[in-house]
């Protein structure tokens, strides 16, 4: 019988990780992701897993990498100020194709900013979590408690199949917010909810890093004398470090195209009121998308021809969904405008793209209603002087 609880997003992420077979959590306490660490420290030992507290987030994620290299599924969780310290291990995990799940509960920045309030300042950082380029990333963004659990299970699933760290880009309202959470207790219930779990496999060698865009290649697992070699250097197919640009090209091509060429497998978004060529489409992800949906419904009730796109997969950016010739408005929890830049790039040529930013709090339905009316009337939106109209 499925368990039905009132829980936080942090608890949901923990449940998702346990369901997915996570056996190691290593991290460092940080608001608003601390409860993930706390919950993991309580729950993991009961399922034979290990909780480690690193001396910092960089150590935490490296411990996860080590555990994953030893064959255990691992997860870490943090917020902006800790996420930035993971730049180092991110690069290694991406380059060496190590499956891993990383949660970022975004808060208000820059730097330590405000701890207990939602922000969306790491939209681009989650795409480029490390230096050097030459890679693609998978980033998923839940907008509620139940979805946080489901996406965590999915994140583990895709991390195994793609051999890469998968980032869950949540925000403080998702992780701290309380909602109903249904937790499956049997495999049938898992299947009913569409949740898939894949066990860890082990690459037998010797071609650990084939130059293809194929997925479902087992990851490198150390300690079984397969002759595995896994490094931060550009690898040959066998994992030898090399300075040859030909190998760098092959490696980069794989890191980019294994994800780009197979992204249809995991790309998800939600569209509503978009079938009748709306005059304005609102774009959002994470907790603001909840308000945006209410605002669009309300506007429709008032007879405004508006629709909405809610992104669940953030990276690779699902640009194919922006095929409606219409005006666009992105609503996000930062004042500098991040998602809006990507939307500008993806929309049909000549489309107007507007931006409405807030941070630390959600916009109100009424507020958004006013903004929509202004845009539809061709007026500049100047409500709180934080809008940006670069179209």
């Amino acid at each position, binding site marked *: 019988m499925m368990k039905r609880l009132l829980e936080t997003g942090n608890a949901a992420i923990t449940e998702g990780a346990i369901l997915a077979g996570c056996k190691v959590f290593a991290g460092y306490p940080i608001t608003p992701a601390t409860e993930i660490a706390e919950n993991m420290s309580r729950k993991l030992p009961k399922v034979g897993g290990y909780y480690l507290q690193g001396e910092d987030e960089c150590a935490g994620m490296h411990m996860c*990498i080590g*555990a994953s290299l030893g064959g*255990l599924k691992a997860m870490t969780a943090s917020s902006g100020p800790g996420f930035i310290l993971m730049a180092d*291990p991110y690069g290694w995990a991406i380059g060496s194709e190590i499956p891993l799940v990383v949660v970022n509960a975004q808060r208000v920045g820059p730097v330590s900013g405000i701890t207990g309030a939602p922000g969306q300042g790491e939209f681009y950082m989650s795409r480029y979590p490390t230096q050097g380029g030459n890679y693609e990333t998978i980033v998923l963004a839940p907008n509620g408690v139940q979805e946080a659990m489901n996406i965590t299970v999915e994140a583990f699933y895709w991390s195994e199949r793609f051999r890469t760290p998968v980032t869950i880009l949540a925000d403080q309202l998702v992780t701290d917010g309380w909602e109903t959470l249904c937790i499956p207790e049997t495999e049938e219930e898992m299947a009913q909810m569409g949740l898939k779990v894949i066990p860890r496999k082990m690459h037998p060698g010797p071609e650990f890093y084939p130059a293809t865009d194929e997925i479902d290649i087992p990851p490198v697992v150390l300690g079984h004398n397969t002759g595995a070699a896994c*490094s931060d250097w550009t690898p040959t197919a066998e994992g030898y*470090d090399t300075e040859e640009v030909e190998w760098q090209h092959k490696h980069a091509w794989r890191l980019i195209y294994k994800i780009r060429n197979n992204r249809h497998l995991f790309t998800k978004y939600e569209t509503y009121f978009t079938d009748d060529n709306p005059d304005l489409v609102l774009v959002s992800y994470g907790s603001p998308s909840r308000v945006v949906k209410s605002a669009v419904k309300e506007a429709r009730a008032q007879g405004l021809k508006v629709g909405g796109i809610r992104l669940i997969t953030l990276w690779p950016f699902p640009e194919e969904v922006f095929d409606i010739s219409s005006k666009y408005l992105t609503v996000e929890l930062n004042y500098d405008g991040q998602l809006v830049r990507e939307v500008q790039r993806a929309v049909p040529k000549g489309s107007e793209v507007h931006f409405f930013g807030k941070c630390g709090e959600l916009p109100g339905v009424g507020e958004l209603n006013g903004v929509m009316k202004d845009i539809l009337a061709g007026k500049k939106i100047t409500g709180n002087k934080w809008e940006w109209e670069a179209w």
Partner: protein
Amino acid sequence: MASRVDALATKYLRPRKIPSTACGGCGLGQVHKQVIKAVDELGLGLDDIVWGTGIGCAGRQTFNTWKGDNFAGTHGRAYVIATGLKLALPPDKKIILTVGDGDAFSIGLAHLMNCARRNVGMTVIVLDNLGYMSTGGQYGVSTPKGIKTDSSPYGMYEPNWLQKGAGLMGMLREAGATFLARHTSIQGPVVVESVKKALLNNGFSLVQVIYPCVTNFSGVAFGSRDPLVAYRWLKEHTVGMHDETTKETCFRTGIYHDASNTRIEYSELQRGVVSDIQRREYQ
């Protein structure tokens, strides 16, 4: 002698990586050989060890030389990678890390200290070439006082970890390390014995082996890239840990701390705690 080394290389090392691309006369090869000898004398096989490395000459020249399983971590992080890895490995596997002085004692020091505190089962071999040598020769945390490098053109004036009063080994000991030794690369058989002891400790072991980089260190500090000049200097400055000396720069060698197998190893501790919790849970 040569044939025995070749036999060891054939048994344990990958032909594609040996000989390494280290400079002729580099102490790194001496230490690498000493470690392999220790492994062989303990009767350990390819299956028993996962070999990790760091960044710099020490990391690059030893990475993937081991015929078994290998990893090379990001700079200064091999210790925390090994912490996670040790938990996931079958308990009887050993982890050897060959890293440089910058990796262990500078960028990775916080991780190293915490691994000592946790007593994570690993044998850290610090191939100490007295500074940042793979980047051309800049001073590091073990560069002796007065030594000129490309970033200390007026002589090293910053205090270092090896000077009198600076207790690097003492710090690691206080943190909880269970085997600690310092040698210079010219003390061949002694290094082999120390590494054997380190490997037999089911806990955190560190063996620091010092040699001056014959190219970038010696080239600037001594005005000569002749290995004989470098090793003569090393010999003059190698002093037993209890010997009397008036030399300001000296490498005090010996076993600093041997509390082998007196503290529970970290992954063993974790496994024990987890199985207790599971037993209570399902009683």
